[in-house]
């Protein structure tokens, strides 16, 4: 919303201090406007971003291929009927019987890295909503320079208690 009125077409927000971030976009619509507003440079370089509601059989195959090559992919919010094309089960499937399901997250998919967000941001960010712009910007930063995920090794101690050892494949020891 701008001045209490919703513009006919999404208007790019003016976001100061954005860092140009090259990405490769699959899909279009308000996501494209929103991404440009937060500093994305659309082209053939950088991580792949799937636009909101942009996941279909063709883009899904592309995503799987990219992940298989060890690349990072950001999948923005998708409708439930896109579940067959999603690279992993979980983010848009039926809710689990127990436990919480986060609207966003990251996981390793083969050698690649998936970042996902099921919260809809594109229209609000394209219209200049700062919270949505910040979150979209965070997602871009996340997929552009993903921190290593921990590996978890589980064991059962002699007295039956469980222990989990978390390790990261980097040099940040302190």
């Amino acid at each position, binding site marked *: 919303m701008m001045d209490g009125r919703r513009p006919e077409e999404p208007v790019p927000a003016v976001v100061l201090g954005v860092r140009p971030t090259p990405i490769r976009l699959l899909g279009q619509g308000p996501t494209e406007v929103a991404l440009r507003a937060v500093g994305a440079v659309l082209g053939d370089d950088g991580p792949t971003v799937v636009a909101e509601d942009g996941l279909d059989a063709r883009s899904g195959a592309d995503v799987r291929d990219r992940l298989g090559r060890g690349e990072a992919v950001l999948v923005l919010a998708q409708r439930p009927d896109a579940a067959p094309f999603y690279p992993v089960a979980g983010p848009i499937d039926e*809710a*689990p019987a*127990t*436990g*919480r*399901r*986060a*609207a*966003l*997250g*990251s996981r390793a998919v083969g050698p690649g890295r998936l*970042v996902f967000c099921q919260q809809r941001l594109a229209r609000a960010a394209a219209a200049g909503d700062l*919270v949505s712009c*910040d*979150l979209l910007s*965070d*997602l871009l*930063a*996340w997929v552009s320079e*993903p*921190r290593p*995920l*921990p590996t*978890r090794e589980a*064991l059962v*101690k002699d*007295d039956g*208690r*469980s*222990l*989990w*050892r*978390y*390790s*990261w494949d980097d040099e*940040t*020891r*302190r």
Partner: protein
Amino acid sequence: MTERRFDPTTGEWRMFARHRQDRTFLPAEDHCPLCPTRPGAPPTEVPFPSFDVVVFENRFPALARHPPGPEVPSSPLYPVAPSFGANEVVVYSDDHSLGLAQMTPGRIAKVVDVWADRYAELSARDEVAYVFVFENRGVALGVTLHHPHGQIYAYPDIPPRPRRELDVATAHLERHGTCVFCDVVTREVSDGVRVIAANRSFVAFVPFAARFPYEAHLVTRRHAPSVLDLTDPERLALAGLLKQVLAAYDDLFGFPLPYVMSVHQAPSDDGHDTVSHFHIELTPIHRTATKLKYLAGSELGAGAFINDTAPEDTAARLRDLVLRAEA
């Protein structure tokens, strides 16, 4: 004896665990059970020569996956229940002297990653209603092992303080249509006088109605119900801000300040997301270098805290220490 008893006069469950009287108490460094097991040395709790972060089930749990049956019978007036849940120990690193305040933000972010993993796993268990991450630091606060570590309690119900927080947030939402924590963050950023430090994603401030002189809350600017809902840049921002505040604590009186760190977030189910707002509460018990804030008559007897300082003054002092550290 490990059981839960319900207090019908307050409506609260209490945990009983008699075996915890026998737990390890302040061992010497060369007998630290949280250090890695060195070659040729006696085994510790951690059977590795080195590690990044380790989590294990507490040897002296008050809550367990397979608890024994209660020793006393349950009745309508006095309900008694098995102590279902989990007590886990989170060992921050294999360095006996490396606390959160001494770590780099990148290293603290790894601890946050582990909180997220444990939160996801424990909150998915049928018997768990609330996952509570915390750290007791300092002998004055009952620490029994010096090696820097935190703990995770997975409760079978929502404990009193988070329950009260959720109830108040629900009432605020019904009355104003907004999240009370979002409103508090907006107000604190606007006022500025109680802010200790802030970054793009989090704000640290002494609460307007702080219970303890140097109490600090670290709250997400964005409405995020749990650690699972934080983006990676937000986890790094939290780590950076936590380091700033904890370092200021240690500079405050020239010694490592004892504190309790409590992580408040959404219960295990998905039903509280609009009123759950991820935040960390830090409650140091010192009011001066030599004086502690005791919980006495008004606090313990009536539940009404008296603070001998003005939050605006203590925030200014902590803010100054943060700025000096950055200079």
